[in-house]
């Protein structure tokens, strides 16, 4: 095993090369990325950078830090194809041979067909560092923002905008989910936004643009905004692999340990892991990190010692939302702790056998730890009685 190539230098790819060196791999290591500039991570893009901070807040590490551990870093080098049997990665100019390949190309902002015209007329998305810098520049106290999509990214953008004093409208669905959270687990979301002065619109809307402003028409209500952001989800960046590997709507299909084919692995948002569909950590940075460490361990012959409990978190308007475990279909949501108004703060997610398979909490570290401690055990009747 002399040459490992990692495609994609966000947190999955960087963690992979760092873990390989930490685990004693001393062969050649190449890290590629399609974008120019140093490797960066995404969570700060919807937080510190959007709040007007330096884009460098998102940097993962300096290029010299990669050089110091003997990693050949090649930014501005997109991969365009793959010859699996021949172990060759196709680049724009030439091929790169590998003994092991780790796919960490992540995902791109999804823009469904009916919304592409909005992009053409100046609507933003938020996925890359360039997107974040452009959006941060467009926001300001006098200027209004509308966000289409109330999921994790949309809600975090709304939260950052409100803290900057930007009048904000959120266009959400009545059945709005927040990452893995749905139903009773997400009851607190839209009321939380409203309590912070966000105009939340769940009726169907028509969006048009005129005189340099966005007009959002919901029949009974009308909203106007200077800036529109589309945050309706992501699409795995696996199009370039469709002719070489099994690729589905959620990315490159791999086994529960990230293996795609002999010598080929996938980590992070581009990976569609068998059995991982309902992990609360799906498409989070925490998952990319854990998977990268796991794959590095498999390549270096030093496997993960302890299984990782899936974890999800998001900070919205200063409230920390956390979840652990899995939330598959057909589960029952059992409230545990409640706030002073009697609304549930912490929840156990219980499967048909009565086993707690997931945990979630809003703004309650204690409630979260209590719920998480129940994972894997039968739900006790004394809990239900409270």
């Amino acid at each position: 095993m002399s040459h490992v190539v990692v495609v994609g230098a966000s947190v999955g790819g960087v963690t992979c090369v760092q873990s390989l060196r930490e685990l004693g791999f001393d062969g050649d290591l190449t890290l590629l990325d399609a974008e120019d500039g140093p490797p960066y991570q995404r969570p700060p893009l919807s937080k510190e950078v959007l709040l007007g901070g330096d884009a460098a807040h998102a940097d993962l590490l300096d290029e010299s830090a990669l050089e110091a551990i003997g990693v050949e870093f090649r930014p501005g080098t997109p991969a365009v194809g793959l010859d699996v049997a021949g172990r060759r990665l196709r680049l724009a100019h030439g091929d790169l041979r590998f003994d092991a390949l780790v796919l960490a190309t992540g995902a791109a902002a999804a823009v469904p067909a009916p919304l592409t015209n909005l992009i053409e007329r100046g609507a933003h998305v938020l996925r890359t560092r360039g997107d974040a810098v452009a959006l941060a520049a467009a926001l300001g106290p006098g200027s209004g923002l509308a966000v289409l999509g109330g999921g994790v990214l949309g809600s975090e953008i709304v939260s950052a905008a409100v803290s900057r004093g930007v009048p904000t409208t959120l266009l959400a669905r009545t059945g709005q989910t927040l990452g893995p959270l749905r139903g009773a687990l997400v009851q607190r979301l839209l009321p939380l936004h409203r309590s912070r002065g966000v105009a939340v619109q769940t009726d169907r809307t028509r969006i048009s643009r005129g005189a340099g402003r966005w007009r959002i028409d919901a029949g009974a209500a009308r909203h106007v905004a200077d800036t529109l952001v589309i945050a309706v989800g992501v699409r795995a960046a696996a199009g370039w692999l469709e002719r070489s590997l099994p690729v589905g709507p959620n990315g490159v299909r791999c086994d529960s340990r990230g293996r795609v084919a002999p010598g080929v692995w996938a980590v992070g948002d581009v990976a569609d892991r068998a059995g991982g569909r309902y992990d609360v950590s799906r498409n989070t940075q925490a998952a990319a990190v854990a998977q990268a460490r796991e794959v590095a361990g498999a390549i270096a012959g030093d496997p993960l010692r302890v299984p990782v409990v899936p974890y999800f978190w998001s900070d919205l308007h200063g409230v920390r939302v956390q979840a652990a475990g899995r939330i598959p279909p057909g589960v029952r949501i059992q409230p545990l702790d409640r706030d002073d108004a009697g609304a549930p703060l912490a929840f156990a997610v219980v499967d048909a056998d009565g086993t707690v398979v997931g945990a979630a909490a809003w703004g309650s570290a204690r409630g979260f730890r209590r719920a998480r401690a129940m994972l894997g055990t039968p739900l006790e009747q004394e809990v239900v009685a409270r």
Partner: protein
Amino acid sequence: MVEIVVDSAACVGAGQCALTAPQVFDQDDDGIVVVLAGAVTDVSAARQAAQLCPARAIAVTG
């Protein structure tokens, strides 16, 4: 000798560290990381905990 440094301000209370290396890490009532006293016997578990921290708040040196 192995040294553990944590950034409490960056910690988000995930508790992955406490699940991965319970001899080394615990959480306080707010869920923030606490490094337990005593020499680290299981270094590789401590390193795995640092690698898995969703907030990158743990550094294991030495």
